[in-house]
């Protein structure tokens, strides 16, 4: 297992290099420049600006310098927010986005797994149909419809939670629910499907024959099988929660990283765009590694040696 993980970590190095190169190429080969949207910058000031950020050098040299800085953990300067470094912007925004995603994850797992268990254990009953139809509705309601509706009902009519903003835990709930619901629905379907795969297998019958209580069989044996597809779904799910929070952050006016990214992409804020893309990409690579390792722990049939 340790060897497997070390090997996978080593594999990340070339992947990371390719990702850095690809995103650098994508961002830099695009037409336009960080200073082209500003109104009438005198040429000499423009030249000074380009020298400040190193844009006057040949591209390969810029790339080498960028990778060098990256290795030292320096993501460069923002051109849109000249007084701030990319590191500062990410340090301010990313924890906010992460905490939103964390609430969404907990909510989606709680609701999704519970509904999935109900569906599998009471297969083809009214309970099952109700849970699965709800799940399909949940998958079909986009966050940008659910979010405003939740604000309308919970905040503006019932006055239970703040409609927008950032501060204490109460600001986390509505955005978290909005972000997590669609994943809760998918997780419910996956849990149910995974549990139904194993529900008639021999080891479940053995567990019954041993006289284990139904509760123990469900929680210890069936759920293990039911969670496998959920685990492999978690990588892409967390990834799309993090990027999907762009919309939720806009709806609830949450100071996460999303609005910065959209702004940065528009204004050709090279270093900020690349910084955010790379941050997410590396986060996702590590996440997939963790997911694979978890998968091995849960499914004894998988052998990593």
């Amino acid at each position, binding site marked *: 297992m340790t060897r497997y993980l070390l090997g996978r970590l080593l594999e990340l190095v070339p*992947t990371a290099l*390719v*990702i850095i190169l*690809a*995103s650098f190429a*994508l*961002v830099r080969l*695009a*037409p336009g420049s960080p200073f082209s949207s500003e109104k009438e910058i005198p040429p000499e000031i423009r030249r000074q600006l380009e020298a400040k950020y190193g844009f006057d050098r040949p591209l390969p040299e810029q790339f080498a310098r960028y990778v060098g800085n990256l290795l030292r953990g320096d993501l460069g300067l923002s051109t849109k927010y000249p007084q701030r470094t990319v590191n500062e912007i990410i340090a301010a925004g990313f924890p906010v986005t992460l905490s939103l995603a964390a609430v969404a994850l907990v909510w989606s797992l709680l609701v999704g797994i519970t509904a999935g268990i109900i569906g599998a254990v009471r297969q083809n009953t009214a309970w099952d149909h109700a849970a699965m139809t709800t799940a*399909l*509705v949940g*998958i*079909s*309601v*986009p966050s*940008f*419809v659910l*979010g*405003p*509706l939740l*604000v*309308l009902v919970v905040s*503006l009519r019932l006055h239970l939670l703040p409609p927008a903003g950032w501060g204490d835990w109460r600001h986390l709930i509505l955005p978290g629910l909005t972000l997590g619901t669609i994943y809760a629905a998918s997780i419910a*379907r996956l849990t*149910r*499907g995974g549990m*139904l*795969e194993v529900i008639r297998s021999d080891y479940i019958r053995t567990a019954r024959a041993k006289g284990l209580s139904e509760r123990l069989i469900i929680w210890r044996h069936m759920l293990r099988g039911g969670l496998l597809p959920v685990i492999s779904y978690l990588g*892409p799910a967390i*990834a*799309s929660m*993090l*990027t*999907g929070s*762009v*919309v939720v952050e*806009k*709806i609830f006016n949450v100071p996460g990283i999303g609005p910065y*990214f*959209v702004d940065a*992409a*528009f204004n*050709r804020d090279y270093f900020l*765009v690349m910084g*955010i*893309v790379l941050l*997410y*990409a590396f986060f*996702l*690579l590590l996440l*997939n590694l963790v997911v694979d390792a978890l998968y091995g722990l849960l499914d004894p049939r998988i052998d990593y040696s």
Partner: protein
Amino acid sequence: MTGADDSLAAGARPDDALIAGTSLWQDAWRRLRKNSMAVASGLIILLVGLACLVGPLVLHAVWGYDAQTQDLAYGPQPPSWQHPFGTDFYGRDLLVRVLVGGRVSLSVGLLAAIVAATIGTIYGAVASYAGGVVDSLMMRTVDILYALPYMFLVIILVTILGKSLLLLFLALGAVGWLLTARVVRGQVMSLKEQDFVLAARSLGTPGRAIVFRHLIPNTLGPVIVTFTLTVPSMILQEAFLSFLGLGVQPPSPSLGSLINDGANQMLVFWWTLVFPGGVMTLLLFALNFLGDGVRDALDPRMRT
């Protein structure tokens, strides 16, 4: 004369009359028709599609409503017989705007899904048939692209390519083919070891013909399943972009931008959020349900 021919023909292949063979497609179609929820979803999609296609024309011809002409004096009106969905802030009939927006959503969803399915199918089939280093290089590329934050890539592409409808679905399709590529590759992996491929190869069929004539047609089932589930996700992403102001540009409506407008005014003019949001949800629900039905019909083993 003809009678003799018939008996001859029947005599030559006596099995035909006794056992009418059922092809995979007939079988799948029969299963799909038995799934009443899927049939209902299909009907809803057809109805919504038809309404989006001809509805704006009818509304314009009969009542003179159109999606863009503003009437500021009239302003936002709640739903009435005259305007079933009400009117928006600029006095435009919301029903027309929702229908025209639905037209955008459906066409972007379909076209982007077609782009994604085409790229993905060819890519996956070629990678798998080539095998070896080519395969691992091509699939490593897919893995790397998979690791990049998808929506962010689309946002970058949209800001690079400009905000046009054509480029929007190209951008969505260009990033959305990864899943299809993986599915097709998996299929071709098992297909290419089978005897009919060996037979084709021993007849001297060139590799390109094997891929396009023999391998790809046999992956059609899983490709269609992936395709039907890609359409709603593409529609969702178009709306996502339009909601952020990156997709279809005003004054042209799109369900995403209508929902965005509605969300900004929902406290006072609730109908501007509820109707576009409701239509969007209904459409996605029906598409997801139909996609599930198609999957169950084409691949009963995947049924859960």
